[in-house]
C-alpha cells in the first residue's frame, strides 16, 4: 500500500471514532461527559433514563457507520462493473424492491409503531428485496452484456415505483405521510437485534467482496480483457448482484432509502487514492462512506431533526458528484 493511502485510511478511522464520540456526547438531553463514559464503561448512573439515551445514541452511530460504509462499497462495485460513474446501489432495483415491500405494509395501513408493525415492515422489505435479487440472478444467466443488466435494473426501479404510486392513491393521509417520512431516511431506532442483523448483512457480504478484488481490478479494462486475464464473468456478475444486493437491501429496510452516499463517495475516493487496486479501494471506500454516514447523522442531530437524513446526504453528495462529473469530461475514457 502506498504510504499516502495508508495515512488517508488511518485518518479516516480516527475521524470516524471522533465523530462517533461527538455523536454520543451531544444531544437534546444534557448528559455530562463523565456520566457518558461511565455508562459506556458499564457503570450504573444516577439518572435511570441516561443509559437508554446513551444506548440510543450509540445504536444510531453504529447504524450510520455501517450504512454509510455499506452503501459506498456497493456503489463502488457497481460503478466499476457498469463502467458508469453515476451508478449507485439502487441501480439494480434491489433497494426499490425493499421500498416496495415496506410500502405495502405502511401504505396498506399497518402502522410502524403497532405491535408487530416494525418487525413486519422489515420482513416485508426483505421479501421485496430478495424477490428482485432472485429475479436478477435468474435473468443473469441469459444475459451477455452488462448494459442489459443495467437496463433491466432500471426498469425494475420504474416498475416498483409505479406499483407504489397505486398504493399511494388508495392510502389515507396518515399512512401516506408515514411512508413519506420513512422515505426521508433515518439511522434512528434500531434495537440491538436489528443492529446485529444489519451488521451481519453488511459485514459478511463485505468480507465476501474479497473475492471480487481481482475481478474488479480486471474489469477496469472492460469485460473482454477481464476474461482474458482469467476472470469468470458469469460468476463475477452473480457475486456482484448478491453482494451489492444484500448490503443495499438491508440498509434500505432498516434505514429507508438513502441517496447520494453510494454514488458520491466512490468517486471522491478514487480521485484521492491513486491505486486502482480494489483490495485497498474497497477498504478505504468503506471507511469514507462510514465517515460520511456518521457526519450526516451528526448534522441531522445538530439541527434537532429539522433536516431529514436524505437532505443532508444530498447537500454533501450532490456538489461532490457535480465536481467529479466536470473532471470526468477531462479524464475518463469513453465507456
Amino acid at each position, binding site marked *: 500500500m502506498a504510504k499516502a493511502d495508508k495515512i488517508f485510511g488511518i485518518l479516516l478511522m480516527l475521524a470516524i471514532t471522533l465523530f462517533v464520540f461527538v455523536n454520543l456526547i451531544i*444531544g*437534546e*438531553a*444534557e448528559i455530562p461527559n463523565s456520566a457518558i463514559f461511565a455508562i459506556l464503561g458499564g457503570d450504573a448512573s444516577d*439518572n*435511570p*433514563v441516561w443509559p*437508554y*439515551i446513551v444506548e*440510543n*445514541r450509540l445504536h444510531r452511530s453504529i447504524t450510520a457507520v455501517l450504512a454509510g460504509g455499506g452503501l459506498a462499497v456497493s456503489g463502488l462495485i457497481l460503478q466499476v462493473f457498469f463502467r458508469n460513474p453515476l451508478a449507485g446501489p439502487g441501480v439494480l432495483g434491489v433497494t426499490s424492491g425493499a421500498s416496495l415491500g415496506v410500502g405495502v405494509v405502511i401504505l396498506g395501513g399497518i*402502522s*410502524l*409503531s*403497532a*405491535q408487530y408493525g416494525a418487525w413486519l415492515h422489515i420482513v416485508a422489505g426483505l421479501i421485496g428485496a430478495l424477490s428482485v435479487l432472485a429475479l436478477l440472478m435468474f435473468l443473469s444467466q441469459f444475459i451477455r452484456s452488462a448494459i442489459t443488466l443495467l437496463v433491466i435494473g432500471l426498469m425494475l426501479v420504474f416498475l416498483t415505483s409505479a406499483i407504489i404510486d397505486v398504493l*399511494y*392513491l*388508495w*392510502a*389515507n*393521509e396518515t399512512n*401516506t405521510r*408515514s411512508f413519506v*417520512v420513512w422515505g426521508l431516511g*433515518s439511522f*434512528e*431506532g434500531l434495537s440491538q437485534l436489528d443492529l446485529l442483523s444489519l451488521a451481519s448483512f453488511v459485514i459478511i457480504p463485505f468480507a465476501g467482496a474479497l473475492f471480487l478484488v481481482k475481478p474488479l481490478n480486471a474489469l477496469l479494462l472492460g469485460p473482454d480483457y477481464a476474461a482474458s486475464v482469467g476472470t469468470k464473468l458469469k460468476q463475477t456478475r452473480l457475486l456482484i448482484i448478491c453482494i451489492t444486493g444484500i448490503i443495499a437491501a438491508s440498509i434500505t429496510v432498516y434505514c429507508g432509502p438513502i441517496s447520494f452516499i453510494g454514488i458520491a463517495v466512490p468517486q471522491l475516493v478514487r480521485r484521492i487514492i491513486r491505486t486502482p487496486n480494489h483490495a485497498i479501494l474497497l477498504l478505504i471506500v468503506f471507511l469514507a462512506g462510514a465517515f460520511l454516514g456518521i457526519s450526516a447523522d451528526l448534522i441531522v*442531530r445538530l439541527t*434537532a*431533526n429539522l433536516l431529514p437524513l436524505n437532505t443532508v446526504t444530498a447537500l454533501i453528495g450532490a456538489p461532490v458528484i457535480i465536481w467529479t462529473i466536470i473532471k470526468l469530461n477531462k479524464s475518463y475514457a469513453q465507456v
Partner: protein
Amino acid sequence: MKMIKSFPIILSILLLLGGCIDHTNDQVDFDNQGPMNSIRTELKIDFAQGFELIYQDQNVKIKTNSFDENTVWRDSMAVIYNTSVENYKKAIQPSKNLRFACQSSTHLSFLKALGAEDNLCGLCGVEYVTNPDLKEKIEENEVVEICQGEGLMQEAILTAQPDIYLRYPFQSDFDPEDIAINSLYIAEYLEKTPLARLEWIKLFGVLIGKEAEAAQYFDDISMEYISLKKNTENFNQTFIMNLPYQDDWYMPASNSLVVNLMGDAGLNYFYAADNGTENILHPKEAVWSDGGKADYWIIIAARPADFNLNQLIAEDPAYKTFKSVKEKKVIFCNTATVPYFTTGVLEPNVMLNDLRFATGQLMNHQPIYFQLLE
C-alpha cells in the same frame, strides 16, 4: 304527636313518588310540530367558534369559517323555509329526508345522534365501516363510496345524488357546486374544547329541521360536563401525550381540544409552557429525559385489542424509567377498537368520566374510551 312525627316521612314519600312521575308525555313531539315552513327555535351558539347561525325572515344562514391563523377559509349554506331555493347561491330546504353524503364518519355520528343516519347516501372510506347496519346498506348500494384515497370522485358522487355533501375544508379537489351538488365545509375538529366541538350538533339540527332536538342534546350533555368539570378543579397532576415516530415525538399544542379535555379532568399539561397553535415537537431523548417525569401518560393510538403495559414497554425499554409507567398511570385509548373519532365526539361527558375514573377521582364507572393500561 305520632302523626306529626310521621308527617315528614309521608311528605318525603309523597315527594319521592311525585318525583317519579313519568315525564315522557312532557317531551316535545318534534315530528308533529306543524309544517316545515317556519323556524321553530332560534338557536344560540355559546361555545363554538367555527360556525354561525344567522336568522333572517323565516330563513337561517349557516356560516362556517376558520378562526385561527393557520388556515383561512369560509363557507355558507342557506336553509330556506318559505321561498324558492333558486333565489340563493347555495341553499337547501330542510327536510328529515335530506340526502347526505359525508366525507367524515364523525359527521355521520352527529347525524346518528339526531336519528338521521338513514339519510346517508354516500361516504368516504366505506371499507373502514364496522357498524353492521351501515355495512348492510353499503352492500345493498344504498350507501356508496364517493372518494378515492383523499379525493372526491365525480361520477361516484353524482350517482349517490345527495342533497348536500358535508366535507372538511382541506380537500383540494374540484368544487362540487360545479356539478350542481351543494356542499358545506364542516370543521368541528378545529374547535379547542370538547363542548365547542359538540355544539356543532346544532348545525346538523338546522340542516334537517331538528333544531330543538339538537339543542336539547347539547344542553343535557354540556350541563353534565360542566358540573363534572367542577369536581376536578383541585386535582393538579401533570401529563404527557402520545408516542414517538422514529426520533420525533409530536404532542398536541397546549391550546388544543384534547389537552383542554385533559385539563377539564384536572390534568395539567407537562409542556404547557410551549406556546403556539401547532403541534409540539421534541426529539425523543428530550422527552425521555424530562417528559418521563410527568405523573400521567395519555396515549391515543391504534393497537391490537389486548394491548397491555408490558407490550408498551416492549416497544421501547426506555419507558421503564417513566414515572407514569412505574406507577402504572398510563391512560390508553385504543382507536382501533373504540369509536373515539365518531361516537366519542358526541359524548365528551363519558370521556371526562373515563378520565376521572382512571385518575381515581371517580369510583364505580365502566370506562368506554380511556382506560388505565394494565
